[in-house]
């Protein structure tokens, strides 16, 4: 577009050393060429004592062109050159008046020292971390208080909402959880059989699958999946409600956000996750059974009798008991991050990411704590 052969391109034509004729389209389309031409006015003008700008040849003028002409006039005025505008159309004069040069002040604050920035950032993130923890604890307290209120007055409990959330977060995530656990069960069985075959102990792969899946893998994979799938959805839902002032609308109606939004979601998670964990355990065992049959030649009947010898009810319970706690952590982090959303789309994205990352991290930390706990009580 900034083609110099373009007949509409802006140009500066000196008539004599005191008169410059501007021709062409002085518009933003010309881009940097426009800026260069405005600079030419200044360069040529500085050679003269007084200058007349002839705008008779300007075919189009927009705010950018007018601004640049005004800026050139100001620069010349500062250099002691008197500039006059000549033969400008009436509408160009209005535009030139509207865009008269003004100084907008310094563009940006000077940057402070880099090391100071780094230390300040470090301090800020420590404070943010502490605040986050404090908010988490207070949020947990709020949730407990809401729970007590609802237990005392059960009519305030929203059953429909709970069922709806159990459907979206529980029932609808069952297929994907079944699939991934089936695959992981199969993969663990396959590796178990390959490694244990060297010792002639491939049938012990059944013990490996049974204990690993029931105690750890089933619940962990389910919790991570739910954190990614439902935790993110909760944060995004509550976050966008916050952005559109829906949360404020709820509270001015005298409704408690805790009862309407938080409790049904967290309860739905707490009730769904153990059920999902059971489904996950069964799928993983089925996957393991199928792989043991194909790779280890262990028939399903033999698999089941070996499994019966390897696990007890408590193996299953160790996994199950972790599920509601993990659900609580996921739900609390997701709702809390949703409420922390500010006005922008960017902030919503940041909160959803933070919610998923934090809940997956916390689920794994919680699993580790439980492992230590069960080991020390020798359960």
């Amino acid at each position, binding site marked *: 577009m900034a083609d110099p052969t373009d007949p509409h391109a802006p140009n500066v034509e000196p008539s004599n050393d005191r008169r410059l004729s501007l021709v062409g389209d002085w*518009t*933003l389309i010309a881009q940097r060429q426009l800026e260069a031409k405005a600079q030419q006015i200044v360069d040529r003008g500085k050679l003269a004592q007084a200058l007349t700008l002839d705008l008779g040849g300007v075919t189009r003028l927009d705010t950018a062109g007018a601004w640049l002409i005004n800026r050139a006039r100001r620069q010349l005025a500062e250099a002691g050159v008197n500039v006059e505008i000549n033969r400008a159309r009436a509408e160009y004069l209005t535009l030139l008046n509207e865009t008269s040069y003004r100084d*907008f002040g310094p563009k940006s604050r000077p940057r402070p020292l880099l090391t100071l920035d780094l230390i300040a950032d470090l301090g800020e993130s420590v404070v943010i971390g502490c605040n986050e923890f404090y908010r988490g604890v207070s949020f947990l307290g709020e949730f407990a208080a809401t729970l007590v209120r609802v237990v005392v007055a059960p009519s305030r409990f929203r059953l429909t909402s709970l069922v709806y959330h159990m459907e979206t977060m529980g029932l609808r995530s069952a297929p994907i959880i079944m699939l991934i656990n089936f695959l992981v069960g199969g993969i663990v069985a396959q590796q178990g059989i390959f490694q244990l075959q060297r010792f002639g102990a491939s049938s012990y792969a059944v013990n490996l699958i049974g204990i690993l899946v029931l105690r750890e893998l089933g619940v962990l994979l389910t919790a991570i999946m739910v954190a990614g799938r439902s935790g993110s959805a909760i944060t995004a839902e509550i976050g966008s409600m916050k952005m559109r002032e829906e949360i404020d609308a709820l509270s001015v109606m005298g409704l408690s956000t805790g009862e309407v939004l938080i409790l049904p979601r967290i309860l739905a998670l707490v009730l769904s996750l153990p059920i999902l964990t059971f489904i996950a355990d069964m799928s993983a065992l089925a996957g393991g059974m199928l792989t043991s049959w194909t790779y280890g030649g262990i028939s399903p009947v033999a698999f089941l009798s070996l499994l019966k010898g390897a696990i007890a009810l408590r193996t299953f319970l160790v996994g199950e008991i972790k599920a509601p706690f993990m659900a609580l952590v996921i739900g609390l982090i997701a709702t809390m991050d949703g409420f922390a959303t500010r006005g922008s789309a960017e902030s919503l994205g940041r909160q959803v990411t933070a919610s998923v990352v934090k809940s997956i991290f916390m689920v794994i930390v919680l699993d580790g704590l439980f492992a230590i706990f069960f080991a020390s009580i020798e359960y």
Partner: protein
Amino acid sequence: MTTPSPFPTSTNPAEDRESIISVRDLVVGFGDKLVMNGLDLDVYRGEVLGFVGGSGQGKSVLMRAILGLTPARGGSIRIFGEDRDNLPLDRRRLLEQRCGVLFQNGALFSGLTVKQNIQMPMRETRDLSPRLMDELAMLKIELVGLRPDAADKFPSELSGGMVKRAALARALALDPELVFLDEPTSGLDPIGAADFDELIATLQHTLGLTVFMVTHDLDSLFSICDRVAALGDGKVIAAGPLRELIESSHPWLRSYFHGVRGSRLTAGVAARGDA
């Protein structure tokens, strides 16, 4: 007169005036409901066209159809004499850069400051020095009547009126010839709305804009619109200078201009006409 003046003084749609938007026989529908059914509309260079119609009649849909955001089922839309849908992509982009749009809720990018919002179209479509971009953004901010300290604020920190002004500044970033305004004064107090009307009128005169304004605000129609078009039953039921519409016998127009709110203002217009 073959070359149209960018600043027409006449408010009459003379036949020889250049039509910037020309919509012919437009059909737009959702599902089996037709929102536009054979709609014809012309917007001439240099005028402010006010577009009125009952709620839910599809004023915004028409604006979106002209902008190419809602697909049309039939008919033709020509902007600057060109059929946008059949243009090659690069020509189409150039055409779109000649239009500025003020959406009803501003549609400012929430992750960018006001200044960055205004610079966004310049940065993406023009090669300019950072200094000039900064200066032009600040100039637009002043032109729309925002204080310079609004430049570094995020949209969520602005009041409703400031959002409208900032969105207008963004719509004007590339000095468009044609500006679409979707209910520019809705949600503003009467003083703010009057200021905004005046601002649009000033900018229209200074920059020689053509304005397509969807509005419910009777005051805006009276104070700044050269012509008014009314939408009803998927068609333009009347288009012309306001006086013509006020005197029209169409039942909807009668209740619009001679209802409780309308008659107060039409009386004012009549009084002004007599004076």
